[in-house]
């Protein structure tokens, strides 16, 4: 109906970001990330009987296992009531009488929350990276930066999903239920279903489709993206043997993550404009 006014998006985004800074959400999440990263870096090898930083590859592999649970949960909590919360409280009605379109409201909300998530992710893991930097080589730092970017992309995909749920849900209670169900499905259930199907069919069916099925889960894309970039651990997971070379390229996987950001956001806009 109207063209997009990026100024209006910026105003809504600025308010959302400011809210998260003010209620110390960004600081709290950044602290959690820093503490976890340092604990894993220094005590990750404690089971093998040694304490202290050993290798960035092993640290990243351990962080991937943690982040795959933590970041989707944080992103879903951050975004699940972005729309339904304002609708339920009544502030959305007033907002929509102003010269701003529904599309701009969604994009502004997403941009502001994504900004908060980006800031806390980069600040949290970046602080840990700075503390570790005297002990690691430059190419290892590059790997660590790649991990940070992929962790951010993972967060942004689940934030996009959260916003979509927030538009569809009729109230906050339902939205929170949907957010928890989404987390369970992508983080816990999805892999079990695929593995179960492979085991049931003794690998006879679906073996060739398996790598493509993993692309249907942003958490798996994040895992694959990181594992393929770490020489020390890629053979450990055995994924290198089943994953087609072309599909494992970081640009391809990054593109899939971007599609996971754009897709749910587009659905959210479509639904919100109806």
């Amino acid at each position: 109906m109207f063209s997009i006014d990026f100024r209006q998006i910026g105003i809504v985004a600025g308010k959302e970001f400011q809210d998260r800074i003010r209620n110390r959400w960004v600081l709290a999440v950044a602290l959690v990330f820093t503490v976890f990263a340092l604990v894993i870096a220094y005590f990750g090898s404690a089971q093998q009987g040694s304490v202290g930083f050993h290798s960035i590859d092993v640290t990243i592999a351990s962080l991937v296992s943690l982040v795959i649970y933590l970041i989707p949960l944080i992103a879903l909590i951050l975004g699940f009531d972005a729309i339904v919360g304002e609708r339920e409280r009544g502030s959305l009605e007033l907002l929509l009488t102003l010269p701003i379109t529904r599309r701009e409201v969604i994009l502004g909300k997403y941009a502001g929350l994504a900004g908060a998530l980006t800031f806390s992710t980069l600040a949290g893991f970046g602080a840990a990276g700075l503390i570790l930097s005297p002990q690691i080589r430059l190419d290892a730092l590059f790997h660590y930066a790649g991990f940070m970017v992929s962790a951010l992309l993972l967060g942004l995909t689940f934030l996009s999903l959260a916003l979509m749920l927030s538009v569809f849900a009729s109230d906050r209670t339902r939205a929170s239920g949907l957010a928890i169900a989404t987390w369970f499905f992508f983080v816990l259930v999805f892999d079990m279903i695929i593995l179960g199907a492979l085991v049931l069919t003794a690998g006879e069916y679906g073996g060739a489709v398996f790598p493509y099925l993993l692309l249907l889960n942003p958490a798996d894309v994040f895992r694959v993206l990181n594992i393929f970039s770490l020489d020390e651990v890629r053979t450990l997971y055995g994924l290198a043997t089943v994953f087609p070379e072309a599909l494992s390229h970081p640009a391809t996987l990054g593109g899939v993550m971007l599609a996971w950001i754009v897709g749910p956001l587009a659905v959210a806009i479509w639904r919100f404009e109806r």
Partner: protein
Amino acid sequence: MASNIVDAHGVTKNFGPVQAVKGVDLSIVPGELFGLIGHNGAGKSTLFKMMLGLIPASSGQIHLDGEAVGGPRFRDVRRRIGYLPENVVLYDNLTGLETLHFFADLKTVPRSSCTTLLDKVGLGHARARRVREYSKGMRQRLGFAQALLGQPRLLFLDEPTTGLDPEAIRDFYRILRELRDEGVTMVLTSHILAEIQERVDRLAIMEDGRIRACGSVQALREAMNLPLTLEIAGGAGLLEQVTRVLAGLAVERIDEAGSLIHIRLPREAKMPALARLATLGETLRDLQVHEPSLEDVFFGYRN
């Protein structure tokens, strides 16, 4: 159409099988203070929301300031509209001034006007306090300040005095008078009919999704032909004298309440009754004519 600032033609709204608004036609001229009254569920809020472009009409057309609601230039119209919802919900984390800054930015209004507006609604002293610390009345005032951002040509006020104390209500209507003098058009709803009956230029009575009547309060009174009341005060034996001089007129009822006598009679009997009462001379100490209240008119139309 161009002379009306609000123009609605054949507007209906269906929610599934329920028709909430049924073919409403409504025109409001610039500078008018227009009231929209009706019981809960009469369709006022739905009509309001359609006029504001919050929900689309199922059929019919609404134009505000010459532009179709939801049309390609409606964004510009929204800059010239102010809206005060019935339940003002703002952002608890922001201060009063920050709240106005946020809305001013979205309306492309200079932030410098926000402080003046806060002073105007009596919130200058609380501009730096978070909205979460505001009372209901203060939130209502802040909501009103928000509606006034950008000197709107058209104001929609939904139950605007809810939660305000008598002093704040007086201030609110003072500001409304100033706005009317400046040529601002205002559409307001209220459940407190006594409060708006002397203040609106015209009003519409909505019932069951339809506009049952529309016009000035006086025009609606006359159209309803509701009886009016004469209240007289006088000395001893007044009741007998009044009953005697009014004999033969179509008087509905004469009641005595202490030193006062109330005479209820049809409008067309008013002048003959006054002429006859004048013959009582100094026996009458005082006489007042009470027109039917807006509440009487409202219930008259409902029944």
